C-alpha cells in the first residue's frame, strides 16, 4: 500500500488502528471460505465519521474499500479480492439503544450476534437470526450477507429483522434508510441493502427487531436407519403444514464425526438424524410434538427422543452448531456448500449428492437446514493436493448446478461473494445482470466498495479496471 495512504489513514485514526505490515495482514487474507485475498491495509475505525473519512481518503487515492465483521463468512465476501483498504468493524461494537417496549435495538455493525441476545434476554427477548457462528459473527456481517441459521425456518432471515440502516457511500456521504417502525416512505432500500454483500454501501448502524422468547420449547431427535426415510420425513412435515422453529438434518457420516468430538448423544450407528425444535404456546407445542412424532414414526424412525431439559437441548444444539468445527479434525480443509432447493425435492437431491460423491471419489457429508431446503453438503479435502482440490471444486460445482436444475438457487445464506460469482449465469440473464449492475452503480458507481463480488468477472461493474487494480484471475468454481 502506498505510504501516502498509510500516512493518511494514521492521520485519521492514529497509528494503532492501522495495520499495514505484511505479517499483520496475513490474518485478513482469509475468511471462513476456501478463498484468499490480501488487503493492502487494515483499519479499525470507531465512528461513522471515521469510516466516512477513510472512504474519502481511499477515493482520493483510487484504492478500493472492503468492509469486514468477524471474518466468519463462507463465500469470500469479506476478502480483498483486488487489494485495498479493509475496514474491520470490530471496534464499532456498541449497542446504541435498547427499546424493550417496542422490541427494537440500534447497534453498531461490530456487535457480535449473540451479544445482542444476551443484552436483552433479561426482558424475555432475543435477536432471531442465529447462524452457527453466532457467538463470533457480527450483526454487520449478518446484514451484509443476509445471514440465516437453523431457527430462520420459523422466524425469517436477517432481512426480516432489520428496519433501518445508516451507511456510508463511496463518496463519503452518510445516508439513513428505513425507519424504526419499518414502514418507510418510498422504495424499500433497507430490503435492497441487506444481503448486498457490501457492494453498495458500508453499513455503520443497524436497527433490528427483537423477538419474544416462546413460552415452551421442545427439542426432538428423530433417529433413522435410512437417509431416505429422514428426508421423506422432512418433505412430509412441510406438506402436513407443520412449521417447526428449526428442522435440521445430519447424516450418519457427519454425526459420527460430531459425536467423537462433542459427545452430544447422537447415535453413532444411525444413518441420519433430524433435530426438530418446536416452539410456542404450551398447548401448541404439545400438539405439534405428537404430530411430529407420528410423522417420524410413519417414516420408520427407529426412535424419537425428546430432550428432557435445557441442558440436554443445549448439548444437542452444541453438536449441531459445532459440527463444521468437528469435521476439521478429519481433514485439513472442508468445503461447505450452500445450495437451496424446493423442500419437496430433498429426497432426490440427497440421492443425487451421493452419486456425485461417488463420481468424484469423495464421501460427501450432509448437515443442513432441512426445513427450508437449505443444503450444506460438505467435502473434506487437502488443499496441498492440487488434484484433490480441483476435484473437490468440480464436485461442489456439480451439486450447485443440480440445485439450480431442480428449481433451487445458488446460495441460501452464505452469499455469492467470490465463491459463486462465476456461477451466477446459471440463474441470471444478461438483462438481469444489466439491471443489477445499474442498481449497483446507483450506489457504488466506480466499484470502490468490495470489488469483484457477486458479479461474474466478465459481466461485472468494471471493478477490475476501476480503482486501478490489476486484473484478477479467478479459477471457475
Amino acid at each position, binding site marked *: 500500500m502506498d505510504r501516502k495512504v498509510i500516512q493518511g489513514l494514521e492521520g485519521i485514526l492514529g497509528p494503532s488502528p492501522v495495520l499495514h505490515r505484511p505479517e499483520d495482514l496475513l490474518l485478513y487474507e482469509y475468511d471462513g471460505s476456501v478463498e484468499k485475498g490480501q488487503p493492502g491495509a487494515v483499519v479499525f475505525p470507531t465512528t461513522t465519521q471515521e469510516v466516512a473519512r477513510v472512504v474519502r481518503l481511499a477515493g482520493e487515492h483510487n484504492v478500493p474499500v472492503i468492509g469486514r465483521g468477524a471474518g466468519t463468512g463462507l463465500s469470500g465476501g469479506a476478502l480483498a479480492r483486488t487489494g485495498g483498504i479493509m475496514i474491520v468493524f470490530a471496534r464499532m461494537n456498541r449497542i446504541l439503544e435498547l427499546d424493550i417496549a417496542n422490541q427494537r435495538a440500534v447497534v453498531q455493525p461490530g456487535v457480535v450476534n449473540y451479544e445482542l441476545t444476551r443484552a436483552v434476554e433479561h426482558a424475555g427477548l432475543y435477536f432471531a437470526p442465529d447462524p452457527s457462528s453466532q457467538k463470533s459473527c457480527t450483526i454487520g456481517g449478518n446484514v451484509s450477507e443476509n445471514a440465516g441459521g437453523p431457527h430462520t425456518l420459523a422466524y425469517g432471515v436477517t432481512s426480516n429483522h432489520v428496519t433501518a440502516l445508516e451507511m456510508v457511500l463511496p463518496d463519503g456521504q452518510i445516508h439513513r434508510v428505513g425507519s424504526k417502525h419499518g414502514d418507510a416512505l418510498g422504495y424499500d432500500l433497507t430490503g435492497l441493502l441487506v444481503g448486498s454483500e457490501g457492494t453498495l454501501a458500508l453499513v455503520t448502524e443497524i436497527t433490528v427487531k427483537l423477538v419474544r422468547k416462546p413460552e415452551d420449547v421442545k427439542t426432538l431427535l428423530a433417529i433413522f436407519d435410512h437417509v431416505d426415510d429422514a428426508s421423506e420425513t422432512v418433505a412430509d412435515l412441510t406438506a402436513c403444514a407443520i412449521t417447526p422453529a428449526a428442522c435440521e438434518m445430519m447424516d450418519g457420516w457427519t454425526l459420527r464425526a460430531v459425536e467423537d468430538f462433542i459427545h452430544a448423544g447422537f447415535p453413532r450407528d444411525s444413518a441420519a438424524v433430524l433435530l426438530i425444535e418446536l416452539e410456542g404456546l404450551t398447548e401448541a407445542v404439545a400438539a405439534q410434538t405428537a404430530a411430529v412424532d407420528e410423522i417420524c414414526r410413519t417414516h420408520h424412525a427407529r426412535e424419537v427422543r425428546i430432550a428432557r431439559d435445557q441442558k440436554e437441548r443445549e448439548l444437542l444444539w452444541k453438536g449441531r452448531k459445532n459440527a463444521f468445527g468437528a469435521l476439521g479434525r478429519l481433514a485439513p480443509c472442508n468445503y461447505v456448500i450452500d445450495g437451496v432447493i424446493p423442500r419437496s425435492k430433498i429426497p432426490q437431491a440427497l440421492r443425487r449428492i451421493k452419486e456425485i460423491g461417488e463420481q468424484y471419489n469423495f464421501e460427501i457429508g450432509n448437515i443442513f437446514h432441512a426445513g427450508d431446503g437449505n443444503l450444506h453438503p460438505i467435502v473434506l479435502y487437502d488443499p496441498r493436493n492440487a488434484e484433490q482440490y480441483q476435484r473437490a471444486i468440480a464436485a461442489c460445482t456439480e451439486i450447485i448446478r443440480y440445485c439450480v436444475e431442480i428449481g433451487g438457487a445458488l*446460495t441460501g445464506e452464505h452469499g455469492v461473494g467470490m465463491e459463486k460469482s462465476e456461477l451466477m449465469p446459471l440463474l441470471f440473464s444478461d438483462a438481469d445482470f444489466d439491471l*443489477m449492475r445499474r442498481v449497483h452503480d446507483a450506489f457504488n458507481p466506480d466499484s470502490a466498495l468490495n470489488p469483484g463480488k457477486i458479479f461474474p468477472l466478465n459481466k461485472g461493474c468494471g471493478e477490475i479496471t476501476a480503482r486501478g487494480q490489476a486484473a484478477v484471475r479467478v479459477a471457475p468454481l
Partner: protein
Amino acid sequence: MNVAGANLAARLEAVIGAAQVDGELQSCEKYTVDGVVPPVVARPSCAAEVVELVRFAKSERLGVVPCGHRTKLGIGMPPARYELAIDVSGLNQIAYYDPGDLTLSVDAGMGLAQLDAVLRGQNQFLPLAVPFFEDCTVGGTIASGADSALRPSCGSARDFLLGAEFVNGEGAFTKSGGRVVKNVTGYDLHKLLIGSLGTLAVITRLNFRTFPSAPGYGCMVAAFSSAEAVIRFQSMISKSPLAPSTFHILASEAAQSLAEPSGDGGAATPKWFEAGVWHAFVGFQGAPEILDRYSRDLADYAEQSGAKKYLLADETSAKFRRGSLQEMVRNFRESTPAATIFKISTLPVIPADILRLRAIAENRSIPCTFAANAAGPLYFVLQPPTADEDTLTAIADIAAEVFEYGAAHGGQSSILFCPTELKRRINVWGSAAKDSQLMRRVKTAFDPQNIFAPGRFVADI
C-alpha cells in the same frame, strides 16, 4: 378519441395486434388516474408483449401506468405524463404451485380472490388480507404496498415475496430472487417493487411462500373507555406469549362503521358495540385447545386493562369481522366524498399523538376517526360530509399540520387516499423521504427514460 390518440393506437396495434389495443374514450376513462385519462389502453396477454409495449413506450417516451383491476390507482400524485395504460389483467395464470413446498409462482394479473380459492383447495393461503380483496389483482396488491390485516402473524409482503419477473424501463424482461424459501443469490430487487406504484417496472409474475390454513379461528372484541386503556391492552398482549393473527384498534366512529350480520337480516346494532369508546379486535387461530387458551388469556388481559366489556366471537362471526376489518380502508374511502386517509407510521403509537391529531381536525370542524393494525400504520381518517372549497382548504391545512407533527415526532406520514382536487393543493407524500436522493438513483437505474408513472411517487419520482 382525438387524432393523436388514434395515431398512437394505430402504431401500438402494429406492435401487439389490434385486439389488444383500445383507444375508445369510454374504455380509456376507466383507466383515469386522478383526472388524467390516457389516450390508449393496451392489454397484453404475455410477458413478451409487455416487453414490446415498453420498448415502444420508451422509444416514444410515453408516460406509462401499469395496472391490474384498477382498484388503487387513486394512491399517489397525478401522473405528470400518461399516454398509455398497460393493463396486465390478461396475465392471470398460476405458473407453478408446489403445495408440498408451500411455494407459488403467479402471474401479476391474477385476481387475488381467484388465487385464494385455489390455495384454499390445498388448505393454504397467501397472507395478503388486503382491502379490495375481491376485486384486486396480485400484482396491484404488491405494487401498491397494500397493508395486510394478517401482518401481526405473517409479516408484510417483503417477508414472503420470494422473487419476481418484470419488464424494466429499458423494455428488458428481468427477474430477481427465486422460488425457494431461503435465497441470497443476487440483489433482492423484487423488494423494491413492493409499494413502488408502478414507477420501476411492469410486474409480470410474482413468487410467494404460502402458509398452511389453521384448523379454526376465533376473535375477541373488547371496548375501552380511553385510548390509554386500549393501548395498555395491546401492550399487555405484546408482552405475553400470545401471537394473535390480527390485531386492530378502532376509535368509536370507525368501529361503528363495521357492519355485523344479524340472524334476522335486520341492521341491529352489534352486540359488541358501545358508543363513544375504543374497540380492540383480536383474531387468533389454531386447534381447539389453542383457541381455548387464547379465549382465557385474552379475557384476563381485557379485565386487567380495564375493558368496559368484551365478547368472544364464534368462528363464523370471527371470519366475518376479519373480512370487515380487512376492508376498513376501502370503507373509509367510500364513506364520504372527501374522505381523506392519512397513513402514519410511528413507533409506538401513543395516546398523546391521537389527542393531538384529533385536535388538529376538530380545530377546523372536520370529523375524524382512527384505526390501527397493530403491526402496521395508524390510519387517521378525515370524514367531512361535503367536498366543497372550504372543506378542501381545511383538509389541506390539516395535512400540513399532520405532516409537520409526524416529522417532529419521528414518524412518517402520507395520505393514502383523498379527493383528486386536494392533490392540486398539497403533495400527498408530505415532506420528501430522507433518502430521496438514493431513491431517484434507483428509479433511474430501473427506468432511465422516466416512462413509468412519472410524478406519482415519493420525492416527485
